[in-house]
């Protein structure tokens, strides 16, 4: 018997009981759709998180930090392994380096009138907003001129502004840092969803590095920012500079390239998201198993109902193989149609999600293809027992069955 003949026959007998075939299909449909939706959401979420973490890491600045800074979070003043002038000179000696700047991080207390707050202090050159990943949303960033002239100016984060000034205007106000008055020139907000906004607190104070050195003469730089000339391979240059600095420090792991750190964090996040997706997907897989059991159940009912039909077919010359194939094709037809519907639904969900939330959810085509094959395989697995049962019916008993 040819394949198209068998499929035609399967459709004919499914059409004889459309409601039942449809309801049986729904189980597979839901199972496949939920797995695909979860994979789509997982992939989309992963792409978004990794994109956010590594956003802006494609800069021409190498950010080198002492190893000590990496592990236990934010240092207290003076705690850091120092970056001193000789380190800066080593970095500056590499060809391909445009400039070398220092930035300082630390915790400090700022006061305004009777209010005070613990803040994270960032001090650096006039492109600190680029290095520490924030945007000045009101007022201005301090300028190169401010830096050169050791001016007492500050940019504060929105949340710090809210704490100190409430709804009042912070621009032009004076705050005190360690007894030194600073004029607020700008209000900043973290760049959207960058790693810095995860790691760093939200009450931030940004000042010129020269001003910081005046206020805290004992502080040593927390980060060295090496600006690379255009057209230079940033990561290879970063490796060479870090190596040279480590040799100079006499410790093979004294300094690290923190942009490299970013890459490893995003790899880790990717891995975690993948595992999470797999776990939730496996839970959704239970729906598919339940659907499969439903198919098997209905096929068994169908075999019992059609006992006489089976006897008639055998008396007309059907071989065991023909009977098995007939029922297998029927259950495969149910599960494949369910699988197709599930794939369509999964894709629809991911498209809808992308439109509504902007999460780049998508069903990778191998996953779609695989779930189609898998739903057909479920048809075979769940149809096999009923089909074999049908083929092994004694034709005489089957004919006598009323």
């Amino acid at each position: 018997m040819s394949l198209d003949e068998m499929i035609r026959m399967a459709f004919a007998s499914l059409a004889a009981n459309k409601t039942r075939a449809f309801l049986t299909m729904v189980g597979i449909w839901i199972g496949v759709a939920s797995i695909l939706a979860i994979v789509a959401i997982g992939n989309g979420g992963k792409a978004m998180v990794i994109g956010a973490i590594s956003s802006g890491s494609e800069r021409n600045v190498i950010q080198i930090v002492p190893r000590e800074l990496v592990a236990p979070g934010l240092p207290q003043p003076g705690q850091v392994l120092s970056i001193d002038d000789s380190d800066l000179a080593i970095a500056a000696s590499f060809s391909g380096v445009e400039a070398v700047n220092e930035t300082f991080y630390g915790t400090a207390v700022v006061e305004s009138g009777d209010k005070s707050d613990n803040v994270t202090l960032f001090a650096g050159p006039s492109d600190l907003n680029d290095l520490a990943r924030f945007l000045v949303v009101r007022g201005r960033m301090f300028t190169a001129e401010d830096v050169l002239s050791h001016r007492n100016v500050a940019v504060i984060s929105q949340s710090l502004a809210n704490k100190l000034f409430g709804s009042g205007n912070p621009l032009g106000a004076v705050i005190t840092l360690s007894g030194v008055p600073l004029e607020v020139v700008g209000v900043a907000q973290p760049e959207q969803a960058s790693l810095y906004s995860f790691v760093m607190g939200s009450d931030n104070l940004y000042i010129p590095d020269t001003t910081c050195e005046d206020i805290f003469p004992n502080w040593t730089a927390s980060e060295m920012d090496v600006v690379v000339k255009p057209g230079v391979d940033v990561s290879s240059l970063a490796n060479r500079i870090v190596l040279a600095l480590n040799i100079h420090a006499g410790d093979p792991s004294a300094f690290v390239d923190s942009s490299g750190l970013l890459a490893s964090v995003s790899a880790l996040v990717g891995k975690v998201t993948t595992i999470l997706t797999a776990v939730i997907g496996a839970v959704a897989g239970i729906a598919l198993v339940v659907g499969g059991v439903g198919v098997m159940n209905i096929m068994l009912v169908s075999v019992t109902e059609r006992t006489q039909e089976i006897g008639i077919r055998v008396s007309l010359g059907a071989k065991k193989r023909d009977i098995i194939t007939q029922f297998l094709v029927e259950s495969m037809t149910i599960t494949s149609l369910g699988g197709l519907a599930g794939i369509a639904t999964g894709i629809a969900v991911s498209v809808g999600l992308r439109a509504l939330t902007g999460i780049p959810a998508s069903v990778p085509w191998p996953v779609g293809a695989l779930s189609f094959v898998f739903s057909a395989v479920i048809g075979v697995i769940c149809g096999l027992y009923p089909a074999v049962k049908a083929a092994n019916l004694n034709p005489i008993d089957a004919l006598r069955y009323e």
Partner: protein
Amino acid sequence: MIRLVGVTKSYRVGDQVIPVLKGIDLEVGRGEFVTIMGPSGSGKSTLMHIVGLLDRPTSGDYELNGQPVLHLPSNHLARLRNQNIGFVFQNFHLIPRMSALRNVELPMVYAGVPRARRRDRAMELLEKVGMANRAHHLPNELSGGQRQRVAIARALANDPAVLLADEPTGALDQQTGAEILRLLQDLNASGRTVMVITHDPHVARAGRRILHMVDGEIVREEVRDESR
């Protein structure tokens, strides 16, 4: 054509063995019309199922067309059944939900006859039994006599040499039964071997040989002369 030697069939019910056929010797030549009569439970249907290769005897030998068939695997028997045997049952046994035409096509589906040819042949057969105008009706849209005609058309699908009918007129009124019988006689006249089980002496007289079964044995054979 059909040769049974010492065929027995028994069923085991619990630890009791119930003999249903007790040593049947039967020879039916090509083109014969044989009828079998006997009380209910005497084993007529069982015998017919064995002749039709649907069932295997407990012991004995069976040659179909001079070829011993009992040792053959079930796939092989299915093919022999498909090609050589046509069954007609008391309750018609048409597959519901399939049109008359599809029912008639079915043996040809299992024989692997291509679609177009199958359709033509099924139509031809329905015409032969006077059912062409009902080809697309479902069995439950047909009367008993019409269903039996369709069943006969189906039995003829692969042009089998042997036609086995188990009380083909049992569910029909006398006149319709007579029409069905005439159809079987015509088929016999065109060279088919026909075996009919019946309770009706009128029907039995259609055959040249009438076998009387009692309790799993052929107790008497009546041979009628050619004129009827």
